[in-house]
């Protein structure tokens, strides 16, 4: 494409034609699945991996080639051997439990040898490294990771969309533009998000408030589903999502990456760039600058447009670190800004309007005009700002002391539809200060782990209409998380204990002197887990935890109309803390690299599980009648299975299958629990045509996901015999087909990644039960996308 810039038109045309011919012939090669003979893929890389502090051999450390996803593990003496490498330059990644992931660039020109020392650096609280599709050798509960190729496939999407391929994770959406992750049926206040090591504090309480996180800052998204999530907070009832940037560069030079994405459905464009560097003269100093722009217009459901569903996002982050052997300091600042249009047809006046909308089955023509990038009212504006300072001190044999301090500010403005008579808007300002002190120790009477304390001060301030009152909150906690491994490496035991205290004060100063009572909570949580490796192929883990979750401000104090749902919601100031027991049993079985099966079975039982109880009683207002809903508690149990297999059944073909099943009961009324994901099944067939000289890691994949109809919903009849808890029955089952192809084009020194795909390929008309806009419109139709990843090097030294 260089030719497009040539001055001489004739030469450029010739060159351009040549290039076209080259591209066409390459495409032809791909299509004919002909394997060219360029690749020399017989080289090996071998060596020994040791602990940098103890010099002991590390057993079971994984070493892999990021680009090709070839990987192996070290044996009993710490030796490894990577076979079948092709000539070229690769990124090699080395991982071991409790160690910092080490990555280096390596050029394969023949058989090579390299010994590697791993540093015990990552705080147990900061990150957990995992290999493979599932929980392996890191924690006794299920952990999934989205990184490398898997992360590239979801680039340009929101955080929740990026995670929806993780088995057991679903999405709670409010139309096409707002989505938040659900882990095994639990979401919002029950799922903690750690953004670069800082617990994200935003207006998470609303189902229509998406997490204010730019997934482009991460090179790894980790989902901790199991009970062990508790170490991140006593309230991690559903699980934890870690948004982890890669460590700042340690090798001299300035380099970066540019990501571009285009999506057809809403004509969305995404640009994100990262530049990072380290200087040979000041090796301790490294830095990174990152920015993302996303802009999309109106989404299209099969057959019609969804007016005013445009969105725009402008995010950036700056990071710098000063790293010495003994100590280090890191500063991080990020800003997330978004404007989101809310589908005009969803802003109904009152319950009567909602009933009419449901009867209609399709939005009124005035809400389906056509495409536009304009964002009009109703709309949401949200901004999240994070400043973090982190310091660590290596204390040799004793371990490492980490201290961090952060300030977060979250601003949110929700504007109703534009009418002289509208209840105008909701403005929220949430400021949070957090400090964490943690001591990582590597060997203390055979134990490895982290002991620490954490403190948070939070203040909410609203303007305009009240929904969540003004409040101040102070929370603090102390914890210890320890791990023990048997000498023969067959057993790993872990335990954690945590004490949390949280108070809400000053819940007054509200309009009409609506004052609410202060609350103070204190609770103890603990977890115990064991992992057994009976042989090289099998891992079996069990984990049990008791959880203690302090009710969120919305559950305690909400009072007002929630416009997204056209409901009058009222909190209960007298709620008790949510308590319960979570248990997971997981098994992983792997025969070579060609077959792997992974199953997680879980059973959770909660006392005082907090949920929004829908009623058919109505609140009269000048705008008409609104259904009344209130927060209440019940004893609830949830059990389920997340299972997946991956089978490389022919050299170039891989089949994978996933199933996620959940049953949730409200024991108090002996009926189902409302708003739980229905069963979902995903089949994926991938073809790897093999490498050519220029095109490597190519794949074609076809994914079929089926979602069943949610038939397990609570039923209470109204006088007409309809379900008074939900005006609309859950939508029908649906199946979506996605097709995707990707390749790395080795044009210059560093490969350019291309992904072309289509989601909802058959333009299937469907509605998802967990999309609160299912009352108003269908979900979006076909979306063709192209993503390009361009790594670049600015200076070498």
């Amino acid at each position, binding site marked *: *494409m*260089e030719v*497009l*810039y040539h001055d001489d038109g004739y030469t450029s045309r010739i060159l351009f034609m040549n290039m076209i011919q080259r591209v066409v012939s390459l495409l032809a090669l791909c299509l004919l699945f002909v394997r060219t003979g360029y690749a020399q893929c017989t080289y090996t890389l071998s060596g020994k991996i040791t602990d940098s502090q103890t010099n002991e051999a590390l057993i079971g450390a994984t070493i892999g080639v990021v680009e090709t996803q070839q990987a192996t593990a070290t044996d009993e003496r710490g030796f490894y051997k990577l076979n079948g490498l092709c000539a070229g330059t690769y990124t090699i990644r080395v991982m071991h439990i409790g160690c910092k992931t080490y990555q280096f660039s390596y050029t394969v020109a023949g058989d090579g040898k390299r010994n590697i020392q791993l540093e015990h650096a990552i705080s147990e609280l900061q990150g957990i490294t995992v290999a493979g599709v599932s929980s392996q050798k890191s924690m006794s509960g299920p952990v999934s990771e989205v990184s490398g190729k898997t992360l590239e496939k979801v680039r340009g999407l929101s955080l929740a969309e990026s995670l929806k391929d993780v088995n057991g994770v679903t999405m709670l959406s409010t139309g096409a533009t707002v989505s938040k992750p659900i882990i095994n049926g639990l979401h919002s206040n029950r799922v903690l998000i750690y953004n670069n090591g800082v617990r994200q504090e935003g207006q998470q309480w609303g189902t229509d408030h998406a997490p204010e996180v730019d997934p482009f800052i991460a090179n790894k998204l980790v989902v901790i589903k199991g009970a062990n999530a508790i170490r991140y907070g006593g309230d991690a009832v559903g699980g934890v999502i870690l948004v982890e940037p890669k460590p700042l560069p340690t090798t001299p030079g300035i380099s*970066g990456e*540019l990501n571009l994405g285009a999506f057809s459905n809403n004509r969305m464009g995404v*640009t*994100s760039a990262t*530049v990072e560097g380290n200087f040979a003269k000041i090796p301790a100093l490294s830095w990174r*600058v990152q*920015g993302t*722009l996303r802009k999309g217009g109106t989404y299209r459901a099969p057959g019609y447009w969804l007016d005013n569903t445009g969105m725009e996002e*402008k*995010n*950036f982050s700056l990071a710098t670190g000063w790293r010495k052997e003994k100590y280090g300091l890191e500063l991080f600042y990020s800003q997330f*800004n978004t404007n989101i249009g809310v589908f005009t047809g969803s802003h*109904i*006046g009152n319950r*009567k*309007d909602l009933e009419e909308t449901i009867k209609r089955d399709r939005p*009124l023509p*005035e809400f389906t005009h056509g495409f536009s990038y304009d964002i009009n009212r109703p709309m949401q504006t949200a*901004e999240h700002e994070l400043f973090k300072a982190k310091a660590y001190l290596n204390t040799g044999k004793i371990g490492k002391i980490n201290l961090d301090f952060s300030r977060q*500010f979250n*601003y949110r403005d929700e504007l109703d*539809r534009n*009418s*002289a*008579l*509208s209840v*105008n808007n909701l*403005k929220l*300002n949430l*400021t949070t200060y957090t400090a964490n002190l943690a001591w990582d120790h590597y060997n203390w009477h055979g134990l490895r782990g982290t002991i620490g304390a954490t403190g948070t001060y939070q203040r909410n*301030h*609203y*303007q*305009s*209409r*009240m929904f969540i009152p*003004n409040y101040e909150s102070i929370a603090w906690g102390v914890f210890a998380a320890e791990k023990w491994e048997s000498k023969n490496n067959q057993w790993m035991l872990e335990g954690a204990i945590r004490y949390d205290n949280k108070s809400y004060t000053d819940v007054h*100063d*509200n*309009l*009409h002197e609506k004052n609410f009572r202060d609350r103070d909570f204190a609770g103890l949580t603990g977890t115990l887990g064991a992992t057994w490796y009976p042989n090289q192929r099998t891992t079996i883990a069990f984990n049990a935890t008791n959880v203690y979750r302090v009710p969120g401000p919305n559950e305690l104090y909400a*009072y*007002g109309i929630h416009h997204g749902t056209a409901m*009058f919601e*009222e909190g209960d100031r007298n709620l008790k803390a949510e308590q319960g027991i979570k248990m997971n049993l997981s098994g992983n079985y792997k025969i070579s690299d060609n077959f792997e099966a992974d199953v997680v079975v879980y059973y959770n039982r909660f006392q005082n599980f907090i949920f929004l109880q829908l009623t058919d009683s109505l609140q*009269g*207002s*000048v*705008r008409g*009648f609104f259904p009344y809903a209130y927060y209440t508690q019940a004893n609830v149990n949830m059990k389920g299975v997340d299972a997946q297999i991956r089978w490389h059944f022919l050299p170039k073909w891989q089949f994978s299958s996933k199933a996620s099943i959940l049953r949730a009961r409200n024991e108090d009324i002996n009926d189902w629990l409302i708003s739980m994901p229905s069963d979902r099944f995903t089949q994926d067939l991938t073809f790897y045509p093999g490498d050519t000289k220029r095109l490597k890691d190519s794949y074609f994949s076809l994914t079929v996901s089926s979602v069943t109809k949610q038939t397990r919903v609570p039923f209470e009849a109204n006088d007409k015999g309809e379900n008074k808890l939900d005006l609309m029955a859950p939508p029908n089952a649906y199946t979506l087909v996605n097709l995707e192809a990707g390749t790395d084009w080795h*044009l*210059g020194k560093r490969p*350019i990644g291309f992904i072309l795909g289509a989601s909802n390929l058959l333009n299937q008309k469907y509605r998802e039960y967990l999309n609160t806009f299912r009352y108003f419109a269908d979900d979006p139709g076909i979306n063709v996308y192209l993503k390009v990843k*361009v790594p*670049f090097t*600015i200076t070498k030294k």
Partner: protein
Amino acid sequence: MLKRFSTLAMIVLGTSLFFTACKKEDDNDPTENANEEITTLKLTFVNNANAADKVVANWRDIDGIGGNAPTIDSVILKANTTYTVYTDVYDERVSPVDTVTAEIIKEGIEHRVFHLFFATANSSVADALTNVATVTPLDKDEKGLPLGLENTIATKGAFKGVYRVIIRHQPGAKDGTFAPGSTDVDTEFPFAIK
């Protein structure tokens, strides 16, 4: 070229992010939490045959949804009589009282006010009764479509039921009918024709 393109993209990205101003927390006094909200809908009926014969009915909910129930006057009209009815909307929380009616007139092409009669409360709009009284709008918006704040209402025989005023918000879709748009105001008064 790749490098040039990358540099260019970076400059564009950098510049646009640089201008992304960060909003600072608005530390206004919490007592400024007031918001424009409709508290009151007032109906004034004037007998066309006798200007001194006035009926005034208020639908008033000062503390908004939730809290105290609204206070609602009854509408009692004479049979076989023609009145002119004026609809007014206020926010009585603020001082001086905000007359929202003026804004409805200003946004006339987006609004349509309906005066409807029902046998029972909270009925479907499709069940509106047409044999109770005849309502004829007197005012028009800029495009010549009826607005409905001012109407003549010619009552028929004796009746007991519900008098309902609905203001529909129909931006870009107003065509004189009820269906387009969504509801801004929906108030019900006990109603009798004697």
